[in-house]
């Protein structure tokens, strides 16, 4: 005999049965009839060639803007509603397949670009080197090991607050957002938050293109550095971060200097100071040399001038030397008393006089005086 129920009982029994058999299900299909109600509730179908299932959710768990036709993977709870019928309450929604993931990322990118979330003006500097950082990474990952290895070899005295978080899979977006919230709430002088993971397929990196993650990074009070080990297709999370690094190791390199290089740099700078002192001393000693040489030159100038004046005096004196005049044919005349006779009135005829020439004396007698 078939079991018999009232409508309400049937709904209750159905829900109990399905909750026992399939508490949560994961379904992949093409999005159809997507609509948002009152800016909060989301209704849509997932379909394939033969069937279609109704879903219900909230805008808060959307990975970003969605469009009909995209392939989605949805985790949710099947439920028969008392009045609205069967639907699956979505818990996580993930675009799948390269085309859908790219489409989802492009739609989200366009939306966030419009809001200015990636603009350069929003970027803040990260203290170099920081004293305390928050690290969001999977503790088991190679990315975590690489980051720790490089940062330990390069630098010391850094306090790292590690929040272990999944960085791929359906739980990753919520955990990353929670970790960001946790570190921002703690404050405690955290100067930067580093979110890192290694490379992977587009599917592995999906969490970094989820709207809630991108927004949480952009909204972080503490500056962020996102490092995902891949070369192409920069994720939206990286673009929203204050800084991005190409790999976990690169993040460590960007974050702190190399201690050995720092020691060398300090020594080089110190050497530069010593050179400055040497240059100053050299300049001072040149100044002193210059002053001495200028002093000597002045003294020499005085000597030259004095010598010149002396020569002038000598020449003038020479010009007055009576011997020179005598050599020209003049004579100095003296009387017997050796008085210089400079007038005809000083002698009379018969006086004895002496004519002194340059090379000797002529003694003579005055014969006649003519005036």
């Amino acid at each position, binding site marked *: 005999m078939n079991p018999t129920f009232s409508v309400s009982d049937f709904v209750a029994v159905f829900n109990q049965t399905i909750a026992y058999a399939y508490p949560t299900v994961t379904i992949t299909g093409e999005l159809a009839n997507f609509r948002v109600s009152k800016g909060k509730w989301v209704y849509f179908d997932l379909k394939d060639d033969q069937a279609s299932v109704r879903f219900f959710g909230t805008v808060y768990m959307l990975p970003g803007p969605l469009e009909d036709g995209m392939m989605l993977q949805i985790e949710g709870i099947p439920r028969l509603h008392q009045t609205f019928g069967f639907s699956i309450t979505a818990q996580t929604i993930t675009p799948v397949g390269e085309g859908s993931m790219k489409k989802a990322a492009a739609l989200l990118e366009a939306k966030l670009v419009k809001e200015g979330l990636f603009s350069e003006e929003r970027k803040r500097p990260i203290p170099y080197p920081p*004293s*305390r950082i928050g690290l969001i990474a999977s*503790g088991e990952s190679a990315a975590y090991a690489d980051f*720790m290895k490089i*940062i*330990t070899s390069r*630098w*010391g*005295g*850094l*306090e*790292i*607050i*590690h*929040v*272990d*978080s999944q960085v791929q899979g359906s739980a990753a977006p919520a*955990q990353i957002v*929670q*970790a960001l919230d*946790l*570190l921002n709430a703690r404050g405690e*002088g955290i100067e930067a938050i580093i979110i890192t993971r290694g490379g992977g397929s587009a599917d592995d990196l999906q969490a970094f293109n989820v709207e809630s993650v991108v927004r949480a990074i952009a909204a972080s009070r503490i500056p962020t550095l996102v490092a995902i080990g891949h070369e192409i297709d920069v994720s939206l999370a990286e673009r929203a971060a204050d800084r991005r690094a190409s790999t976990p190791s690169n993040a460590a390199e960007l974050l702190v200097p190399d*201690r050995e290089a*720092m*020691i060398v740099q*300090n*020594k080089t*700078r*110190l050497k*530069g*100071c*010593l050179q*400055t*002192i040497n240059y*100053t*001393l050299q300049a*001072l000693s040149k100044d002193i040399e210059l002053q001495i040489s200028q002093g000597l030159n002045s003294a020499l100038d005085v000597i030259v001038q004095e010598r010149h004046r002396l020569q002038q005096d000598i020449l003038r004196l020479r010009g007055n030397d009576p011997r020179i005049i005598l050599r020209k044919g003049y004579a100095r005349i003296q009387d017997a008393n050796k008085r210089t006779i400079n007038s005809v009135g000083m002698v009379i005829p018969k006086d004895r006089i002496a004519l002194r020439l340059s090379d000797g004396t002529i003694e003579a007698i005055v014969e006649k005086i003519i005036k």
Partner: protein
Amino acid sequence: MTMKESKNYKTLKAELDEALLWFEGDDLDVDKAITQYEHALKLTKELEEYLKKAENSIKKLQA
């Protein structure tokens, strides 16, 4: 490594930067330059010591 020591690095570095910056000024006083150089040398050695010995610390949190 404690927070205090971490701050100590920043203090040392700031002091060294200031000491070295002094040499970039005009009209260097040679007597003071030698004192200043000795000060910078001491800071450089302290920093070197610090950098060689300092270790990072890790604190784990659960999200």
